């Protein structure tokens, strides 16, 4: 990885809900042109971390700087340059693809929204679906539309929660290749939360493994595999998580 200024700087980030610590003293950077995976078992703190990076959840302590700005104080200055996609958040199902993209183009104040929508439609092969209501699309088609919405403002920071969940291998590969080309073109920092280790290995230059709210391991996929004497990232992940659970 080249030494570029970080897009995201997280320092000693902690989130407590009463007595329960969901995220515990996280410190990490996300650099441009780099895809980072946030891995962890269910309940490890991934969604809580992503929620704080999006400004949806206020941290208990710690700081988040995005594009050099304090997220807590300048959230609305940062959000036009960020976007996200998650299978747990839907777009309005009764609106057509075109209507959804028009609405979000306005919410992000995209200049020349018509051209942008045309470009995205071309890139993500949505032309034939433009006038169809979202509820009439397949899971794979909905994922492409969700991705189009996530890219409507050409974000410099993209947060993806399970981007290829419940997709067939062909569509999943297609999405991954598209994201790679987008990142090459835009120098975007991508943060990916995923349970798909093969996907993480293929896409990511940096991996953080979380358990019980902490980052317990970090490095490139190859570094982690070598460090733990395993043959693939899934085995490495299982070893790290199980060791962490035993120590607790």
């Amino acid at each position: 990885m080249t030494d570029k200024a970080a897009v995201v700087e997280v320092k000693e980030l902690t989130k407590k809900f009463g007595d329960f610590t969901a995220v515990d003293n996280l410190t990490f950077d996300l650099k441009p042109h780099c895809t980072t995976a946030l891995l962890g078992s269910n309940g490890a703190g991934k969604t809580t971390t992503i929620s704080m990076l999006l400004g949806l959840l206020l941290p208990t302590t710690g700081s988040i700087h995005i594009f050099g700005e304090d997220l807590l104080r300048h959230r609305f200055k940062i959000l036009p340059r960020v976007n996200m996609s998650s299978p747990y958040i839907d777009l309005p199902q009764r609106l057509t693809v075109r209507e959804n993209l028009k609405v979000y183009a306005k919410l992000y104040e995209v200049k020349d929204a018509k051209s942008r929508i045309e470009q995205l439609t071309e890139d993500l092969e949505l032309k034939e679906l433009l006038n169809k209501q979202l509820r009439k699309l397949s899971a794979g088609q909905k994922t492409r539309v969700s991705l189009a919405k996530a890219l409507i403002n050409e974000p410099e920071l993209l947060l993806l929660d399970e981007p290829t969940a419940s997709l067939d291998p062909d569509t999943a590969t297609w999405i991954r290749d598209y994201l790679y080309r987008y990142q090459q073109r835009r120098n975007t920092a991508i943060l990916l939360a995923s349970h798909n280790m093969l996907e993480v290995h293929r896409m990511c230059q940096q991996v953080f493994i979380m358990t019980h709210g902490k980052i317990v391991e970090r490095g490139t996929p190859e570094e982690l595999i070598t460090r733990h004497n395993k043959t693939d990232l899934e085995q490495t992940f299982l070893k790290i998580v199980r060791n962490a659970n035993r120590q607790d």
Partner: protein
Amino acid sequence: MSPTRISGLMLRYIYLLRSSWPRMMEIIFWPTMQLVTWGFISKHLISEAPLYQKAPSLLITAVILWDVLFRSHINFALSFLEEIWSRNLGNLFVSPLRPYELIASITLISILRTLIGVIPACLIALPLFNFNILGLGAPLILYFLALVIFGWCTGILIVAMLVRHGIAAESLAWLTIFLLAPIMAIYYPVDVLPPILQNIAYSLPPAHIFEGMRALFLEKTFHAQNLINAFALDLLYYALACLAFHVSYTSARKQGLLLNTSE
């Protein structure tokens, strides 16, 4: 404040209405049914009660103004509920849309939906009951405005509850305005109520509006004080509702509730 972002969110609700004839039907159906029902009740009462012979349009006007208030409130809450039902709230909150722009969009859509609901009812009243709402004159616009603003106040309060408590608070959207209805003196004077409830009634803008409406019909007198009281109370309640929304929104961000609005 960004007119582009506000109009973007308004576009979302307009597209939804355009795509869903049941939603459009529902907006028009209830005010019209209310008007027709009460119109016939009024017709009957005119023949039976001297009071209503003196002011035959009194009941129908009360029905229409009540519906303006109810529609203003429920349309506000419904727009926000659409986001919860469609699980789209997370997308809105991670966009550059400010919370006050969300409120502004929903306010403007609430006006549009109220007009779509009430205008057909008023048009039907003309041939069916020989009733012209415009006969109220200039005060009508002010009554309408004061009631719509109070509907926004209760609507914002409901949105604050939904942000904080999620879909579990959905029933409040329907209950709240009906809970207040008996003490808003819609169909009867305030002095019909027990003394303690009279004081509560006068703390609500609608009671002043409906009293003013009755004075206009029965005494042929326009009491400006009723309107002044109503608008002053509207201002107070609007400020309190916005404060409640701010507190709820901040609390929801602290507790991570913006992404999880299910029960």
